[in-house]
């Protein structure tokens, strides 16, 4: 009440009573409104149920198993009966130079992916939006979407062939300019550009769909009035399209940052060699070699848990920053 009094300041008593009266009815009607809302929109909530169940079954229930990160896990003894070992697995991880190297590589590769990979789908979407000829637009879209639907194994095969020193297109073209062939896939310094580039080529097209959808949602009246005011297409893009899809961009960026440590490791496994481990080995491939292939599920769980904690911190930080400076946020 003191807030209200402060606001009304030195007004008359009647006003105060009236205002508090209004507040009370609003409170009561809020509960009523939720009830009404549920009654009227129950179909929507029914449709929500499968997702909630999915979340509970596949994301919340498995959290029970996270405890094996602190246990000496035996499949046969089960999660509950395996003995506790405290932080031993975490000590093993952080005492391992190769894990630290993998962590460093993960951050660097993700960072490259963010810097070079994140803007690409936005650029693509803006460019598609400017294409007027429908046939050309559709064809171009199909071509850039296509790599997304091709299996990683095949993509890796294409990459290996393209960068082959004897028959690869890259070395052939370099040969025209008198450059000696390079055996790219065994050179640590070339691994990250090739990997990040492959990722962009494979996914940028498909990821642009989200932005195209956002662009489609921009009110045409904005463009119409801009045309009346004599704005150029370039100005419309900068002043209307981009600001309008900014919330989508921010949300995508936050999600992307949350997935920073999730480098698509199947592609790395297909492309790396012991010779390129020094730049290519990431946390997930390290877990795969050490944990899954070696059957050390507890160690793998510890590394996975660490990944999840870092991801959580990253998402929270990005969200908070975004909320403060752009008023767009995930929650």
């Amino acid at each position, binding site marked *: 009440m003191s807030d209200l009094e402060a606001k009304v300041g030195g007004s008359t008593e009647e006003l105060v009573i009236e205002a508090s009266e209004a507040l009370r009815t609003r409170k009561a009607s809020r509960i009523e409104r939720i009830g009404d809302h549920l009654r009227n929109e129950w179909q929507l909530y029914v449709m929500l149920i499968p997702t909630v169940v999915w979340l509970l079954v596949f994301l919340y229930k498995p959290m029970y198993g996270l405890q094996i990160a602190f246990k000496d896990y035996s499949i046969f003894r089960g999660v509950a009966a395996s003995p506790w070992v405290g932080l031993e697995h975490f000590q093993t991880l952080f005492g391992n130079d190769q894990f630290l190297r993998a962590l460093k590589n993960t951050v660097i590769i993700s960072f490259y992916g963010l810097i070079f990979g994140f803007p690409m789908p936005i650029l693509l979407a803006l460019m598609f939006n400017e294409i007027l000829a429908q046939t050309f637009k559709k064809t171009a879209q199909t071509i850039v979407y296509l790599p997304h639907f091709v299996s990683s194994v095949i993509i890796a095969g294409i990459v290996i062939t393209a960068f082959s020193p004897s028959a690869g297109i890259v070395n052939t073209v370099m040969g025209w300019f008198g450059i000696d062939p390079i055996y790219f896939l065994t050179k640590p310094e070339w691994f990250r550009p090739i990997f990040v580039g492959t990722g962009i080529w494979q996914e940028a097209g498909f990821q642009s769909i989200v932005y195209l959808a956002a662009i489609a949602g921009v009110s045409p009246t904005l463009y119409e009035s801009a045309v009346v005011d004599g704005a150029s297409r370039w100005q419309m893009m900068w002043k209307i399209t981009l600001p309008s899809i900014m919330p989508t961009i921010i949300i995508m960026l936050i999600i992307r940052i949350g997935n920073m440590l999730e480098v698509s490791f199947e592609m790395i496994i297909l492309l790396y060699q012991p010779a390129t481990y020094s730049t290519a080995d990431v946390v997930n491939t390290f877990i795969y070699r*050490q944990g899954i292939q070696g059957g050390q599920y507890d160690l793998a769980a510890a590394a996975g848990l660490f990944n999840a904690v870092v991801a959580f911190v990253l998402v929270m930080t990005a969200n908070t920053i975004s909320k403060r400076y752009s008023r767009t946020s995930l929650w």
Partner: protein
Amino acid sequence: MRKFTFALALMGSTAITAPAFAESHLPIVEEPLELTIHMHWARAQGYGPGGDTSKIYPVEEVAREKTNIHLIDQTSGRNSTDQSEAMNLLLATGNLPDIVGGAKVQQPVNEYGPQGAFVPLNDLVEEHAPNIKAWFDEHPDIWNAIAAFDGNVYYIPYLPDGKYARAWFVRQDWLDALGLEQPDNVDELYDVLVAFRDQDPNGNGEKDEIPFFVRDWEEVLRLLTLWDARSTGADVYHQFYLKDGEVAHPYAQEAYRDGLANIAKWYEEGLIDAEVFTRGSSARDYLLGENLGGMTHDWFASTSGYNIALADKVEGFNFIPFLPPKSVSGVRIEENRRIPMKPDGWAITFANEHPVETIKYFDFWFSEEGALLANFGVEGKTWDMVDGEPIYKDEVLNSGQPVNSQMYLEGAQVYRGYPQDYRYEWQWTRESAREGIELYDTEDLLVEQFLGVAFNEEEQAVYDKYYPSIVTYMLERQQAWILGSGDIKEDWDDYVETLNKMGLQEVLEVMNSAYARQYS
């Protein structure tokens, strides 16, 4: 857990009360007895033809008739082709069938057997399985090799027969064209490879020949044996090996330093395929088909097939096995051989209420009758006994289908625990491969295999802590040296020091203590 102790008690009592037979008698039981089985391997995820468990193998029908024991499928993870995954799934559910079999059972069985998931077979074999006992009495090392760290044996393995796996192959027509002999030692080998590189043996006027190529890049490391080093001690790459009765790692030996320095030199000179690390499994098809590759180290059976396959495409094509060249010290070895026991086979779980009947059933497959059934299928259907030898019928040999694929559907050559019979494979081995195998048999080329050790929990913890990182480091350095970044002779002391810092000595210590316990 209660279920488990109950079953153990039950098993104990049956083992004590059951009478001990000196010989196995058929049928094993008077009334038909049903036992459930998990059978997961590459060719079939489930106990039925091609994994179709609604059908019964012809071999199983005969086995039922003879033993009165009926195997009923209860395979977990049938939608996965990964045996370890299926096994882990099975163990995690805790609902174990009577028998667990298939590929890669050794590691889980020896890890969870001592925890009570599987029944130790030592006493059961001793008392009820005369055929299995007789086989292992002749091969005590293999009995030691399959044991878990507690000294018990928990599974009966699939025991492959035959000696050779991979061999050295050379384009004999290229040698003839250049007027060269097959290389007999490492220096001659070098000269031949140089000639292949420089003298245009394929005669197309271009210097496009690739003197030495391989499908798996690790096969390049077989060249190490030419400088008296080793690349591995078992049938998987980069393994420990036996050096003067002790377990050692091949990549920490001085001979390895010299051998790898030479491989690096050969790589730099273009004698080894420049793209060896990324060429992959199609290397052999591509390089032979395009008339580019001169020499390789690969499987007898599949590599000898190219003479027929490429007869029309490459004129005069003749790719034949030759004896391993002598090393710098004059020793001739073929490092790669078939392993005498596999991690595949079958085991009895704690849930099995008939362990005695089950071991007698396992023993049936080691009897003469059972082994023939397991190797060749049903007599009269796929083979006949001719002068005391099992001979496949013509329609099996000439059906156009590989004989092994036919056998898998019959229920023969399935990954039970059984002794394989090389006569099965010999009958459908190509003439050129047979000649090669006979050539390799003229000398004693094979080296002792390291069959692995079973760690106890402390040893396992030491191994798990250090070894994965060590082997990663070894391979990183190895490839770097071959590719010419760094010089192994200069880097050697640092390399050895780093290995020791990473715990190699600790790993060797647990290896050797486990080895001494298991094989002494």
